């Protein structure tokens, strides 16, 4: 397979969606290329099996962008995606989301689960997730996180899946997304208004049938998903139907998704992309600022840091919670996916700087004082994403100032770790304290 073969196909998908289905302006720039974030990150979510939360005003294409991307890339007809969607509302039940008992079997005294389409297919869309009451959000925690769906005494494990959830801005009908659930999302993207000129052209060409619909394949897939066969067998049969739908798309729409094996290869290629030293060190610096507390050892949402701390100028002073271990995983996956898409050999600072704000935006809990200070600033992004972008650039500036010294400090850390007699470097950033902790040069405070 020639280099860039899959990337070319994915660019084809991007072009098809942006020219025909989801008309919007490019709103991100990376390495001189401009893309629309909702489509671009949607594709990366599909490719790396990520979990993306899409926010935006009603009717601005949050759900549809996810449906199109998932449908084309996984080659599931749009009707099946629609039929597998879970919508968030107060009366939603576990039986509709995950599965229900097979009533026929139950009448005969046997317990058997009929899994929902949502739990079975690899493209999962949860519409308006923040309309699910907080108590019911816990039902999907495990599924969102690991693709494990439990019902009665049975478990269905998705070996491959991606998940999109949409959320409206706060109104009377919405609830807060609970912290453990929101942390499980890798990425936060806004589906933006396309501007009046593009908006005017949307829907201009009335269509009788949506180009991504394929009633025959949809019918067959529904039959397979409803069937009694074991999950693995069902998925193998579904893949055959997806192959036919893929052929249909290729011939009629000129766009090619990826089959399961191709998706696996792409994932493998992505995971093989290493981080260059700058990207590596910069992510460490970001994580240090988001988890460090000079007084209490680490950030904890129940502990407020003191005024007048030496590290007042750093982000740790402006936030309440601690970065979870899912954060570096999200950063890694998405920056590798981005580097892969752009056909770069290594993940570098530009990939990282683009990806980090979207992985942070929904995870950081800012202090109220910081929020009120920043609230009135002019911006183009939603407040959360804006703050995360600002934070990333602030840390990047510090990184630029200290780059050489930080790399040396990390190198010294390596030498000390392998037993060399060497003093760790002191510096004015939490990362230097963390390096000392890792090499045992600084005693943890006694509890």
């Amino acid at each position: 397979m020639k280099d860039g073969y899959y990337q070319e196909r994915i660019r084809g998908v991007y072009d098809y969606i942006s020219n025909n289905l989801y008309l919007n302006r490019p709103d991100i720039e990376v390495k001189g290329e401009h893309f629309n974030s909702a489509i671009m990150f949607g594709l990366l979510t599909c490719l790396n099996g990520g979990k993306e939360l899409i926010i935006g005003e009603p009717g601005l294409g949050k759900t549809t962008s996810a449906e199109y991307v998932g449908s084309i890339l996984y080659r599931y007809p749009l009707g099946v995606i629609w039929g597998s969607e879970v919508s968030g509302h107060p009366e939603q039940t576990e039986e509709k989301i995950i599965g229900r008992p097979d009533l026929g079997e139950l009448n005969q005294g046997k317990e058997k689960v009929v899994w929902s389409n949502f739990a079975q297919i690899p493209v999962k869309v949860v519409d308006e997730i923040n309309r699910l009451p907080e108590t019911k959000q816990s039902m999907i925690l495990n599924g969102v996180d690991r693709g494990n769906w439990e019902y009665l005494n049975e478990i269905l494990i998705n070996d491959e899946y991606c998940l999109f959830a949409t959320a409206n801005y706060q109104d009377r009908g919405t609830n807060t997304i609970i912290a453990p659930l929101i942390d499980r999302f890798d990425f936060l993207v806004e589906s933006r208004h396309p501007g009046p000129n593009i908006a005017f052209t949307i829907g201009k060409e009335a269509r009788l049938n949506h180009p991504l619909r394929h009633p025959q394949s949809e019918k067959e897939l529904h039959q397979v998903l409803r069937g009694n066969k074991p999950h693995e067998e069902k998925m193998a049969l579904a893949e055959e139907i997806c192959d036919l739908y893929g052929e249909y798309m290729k011939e009629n729409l000129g766009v090619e998704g990826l089959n399961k094996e191709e998706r696996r290869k792409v994932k493998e290629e992505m995971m093989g992309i290493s981080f260059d030293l700058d990207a590596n060190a910069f992510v460490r610096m970001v994580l240090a600022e988001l988890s460090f507390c000079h007084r209490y050892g680490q950030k904890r949402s129940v502990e407020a840091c003191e005024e007048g701390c030496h590290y007042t100028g750093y982000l740790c002073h402006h936030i309440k919670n601690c970065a979870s271990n899912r954060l570096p995983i999200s950063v890694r996956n998405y920056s590798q996916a981005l580097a892969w898409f752009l056909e770069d050999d290594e993940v570098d600072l530009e990939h990282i700087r683009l990806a980090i704000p979207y992985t942070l935006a929904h995870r950081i809990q800012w202090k109220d004082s910081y929020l009120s200070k920043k609230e009135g600033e002019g911006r183009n992004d939603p407040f959360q994403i804006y703050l995360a972008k600002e934070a990333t650039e602030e840390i990047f500036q510090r990184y630029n100032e200290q780059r050489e010294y930080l790399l040396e400090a990390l190198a010294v850390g390596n030498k000390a770790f392998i037993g060399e007699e060497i003093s760790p470097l002191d510096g004015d950033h939490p990362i230097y304290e963390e390096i000392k902790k890792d090499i045992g040069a600084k005693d943890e405070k006694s509890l």
Partner: protein
Amino acid sequence: MKNPFESFHQVGGRKREIPLDKILQSKEETLSKILNGYEHLLKNEAKDLVWLMQYSTVIKAYSIAEKGLEGIEYTAEDIEEFCYALDRSDQIPYLITGPAGVYISALCNYAKEEEITLHLRDLNVKVNLTGYRLPPNKKLIVEGNVGDFTGIGLDGGELIIEGSGKNYTGAGMKRGKIIVRHNLGFNTGHGMTGGEIIVGGRIKGLGKIVGGKIFEREHLVFPNEGVKPFYF
């Protein structure tokens, strides 16, 4: 426990190098090579700090300049840098405008770029012999004034002077075009056999012209009824 710093094992001893440092270093190296070539030319051609402007000395100086430039990779910016170095006594110990002009012409003629622009408005020295033997498919634009013997022996190129020139401009040129935005001095086009000299301002005086065309403020001043071709 796994070493979390393993990826930084090669960092020690590496010196930080920002792209600008690299560019500056390479620029300095190139300028130093160009200056060496110029000094070599002076040592051969102007041992007693005297250089007599003669047909044969120009040809000889040019061939030495050509040899001095062999193997040097440079751009139009480096030529400009050299021109400004002529103004600084710390870099050019002694300036003789004749060989300097021959050397600059050789630099322009052998540059990779087809179009070269030299921004020389702030240059105090008026370089002689600019555009000597400028070959076909080359365009040299000089922003600023130039000295004597500009564009002599022009060989098909296009020389544009965004300023004024002095005497003997275009002398002996064979083909090509010289455009001067402002004025020219005496003996303009002396011995030229072909090509065009277009002057936006005034020409103090024409030389003995064999062929070609000279325009002054859009009027053809050679050949015309008052000025006939000269036969040597």
